[in-house]
């Protein structure tokens, strides 16, 4: 079982899921009946990336609370890794979103709820990284970063909520209250992609945690030798 969860294995599993998902999306799921046609396929990646980004930020939120309670720096490390990955995924959301927008509606950018929320999310978590960069002392940096991560994560749904006040955008609503709005075959492809994306996130988290740990150890060694 441990084999299945080890870092390299995770990447492989994630890769498999994603490829399968891709195949399903293209071959199995029917072409979308509405005006978007083939370009709608990007949805199978775009939405999972978006949701995975939010999951990453959610984990950072939990890690921040854990750090404030325990003062254990390992939570800070987890938070940092998750925010960076979340930010990366968010940028991808923006990119795929813009591609989809161009293909489906002919515009590169539209000021509609989901795109703008993610734009702000990007700014928010870039601010997190900037905040980290101007505090030198470890514990304090972790504390401030944790406070900010908590506030930022609460702000995300707020932002999304607020952007919905503006006139309705072009974004098709996928999950409506009456059901998932997708046929069975689409749903399967979607879920597989979703799983793949989440596994990818977990794989990256593990890898990055190890990298950060190594970085810290190198810094420690340098200190001992130098000082």
């Amino acid at each position, binding site marked *: 079982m441990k084999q299945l969860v080890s870092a390299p294995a995770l990447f492989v599993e994630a890769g498999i899921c994603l490829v399968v998902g891709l195949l399903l999306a293209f071959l199995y799921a029917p072409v979308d009946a509405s005006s978007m046609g083939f370009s709608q396929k990007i949805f199978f990646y775009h939405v999972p990336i978006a949701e995975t980004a939010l999951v990453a930020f959610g984990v950072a939120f939990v890690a921040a609370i854990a750090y404030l309670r325990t003062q254990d720096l390992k939570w800070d490390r987890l938070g940092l890794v998750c925010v960076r990955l979340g930010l990366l995924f968010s940028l991808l959301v923006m990119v795929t979103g813009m591609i989809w927008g161009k293909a489906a509606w002919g515009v590169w950018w539209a000021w509609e709820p989901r795109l703008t929320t993610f734009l702000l999310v990007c700014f928010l978590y870039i601010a997190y990284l900037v905040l980290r960069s101007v505090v030198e*002392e*470890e*514990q304090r940096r972790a504390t401030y970063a944790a406070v900010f991560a908590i506030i930022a994560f609460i702000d995300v749904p707020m932002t999304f909520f607020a952007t919905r006040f503006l006139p309705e955008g072009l974004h098709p609503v996928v999950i409506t209250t009456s059901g998932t709005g997708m046929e069975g075959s689409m749903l399967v492809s979607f879920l597989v992609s979703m799983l793949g994306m989440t596994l990818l996130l977990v794989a990256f988290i593990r890898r990055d945690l190890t990298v950060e740990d190594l970085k810290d150890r190198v*810094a*420690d060694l340098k*200190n001992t030798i130098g000082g």
Partner: protein
Amino acid sequence: MPLEIEVEGLRKTFGRREVLKGLSFSLERGGFLSIFGPNGAGKTTTLRVLATLLTAGAGTVRVAGHDVREDPMPVRRTIGFISHNPMLYLDLTAEENLRFYADMYGVDDREARITELLERLELSHRRHDVVRTYSKGMRQRLAIARAILHRPRVLLLDEPHSGLDPRAVDILDGLLTEIRDEHTFVMVTHNIAKGLEWGTRLMIIEHGRIAYEHAAGVDPGSFSAVYREHVQEGSVL
């Protein structure tokens, strides 16, 4: 004599640097601890932990019977802190500054106490003047008033004599003599003469550790020798 200050295994790390490496000492009520040591040794850090301004990384610190980490409020009520930063609001008058702190500490006889202290420190004539107009010596004197306003039992002093004109030094010494009994003191200083004059216990902190500890009664000459022996940088006598 009950122990007023108990420190056990105090550690503090700033980033990757361990500034305090396991200090342990205690001070009985009424005692006067003089702490010496080179810059960066961790003296001020120790004092700030005692003052609840910093949280210790590890170890226990008890002041006036309360743990500074678990129970900081009662500790804050019993301590007064004098450092070379006067911690005064420049745009407020002396009176307003003291009134503010008196309110924060819940001093009962506020007005009387303020008047009394301003007189003691020879600042009455300037009580309605904004602190910005005060000289450095005067600001330090006001800072002393601020520190003892709430009648703290323990006084923590961080290089209190530095930057004071001779008159202010006299006033400070006079004040210390007056409240010497029934008060406990911890003073960090570079002024060996003063430290020896006042201290009942002497301590040298170096690189975050106690390098030397002794009860009072040490001859200044031999102490200087000990000091230079333990410390790379000398200090002015």
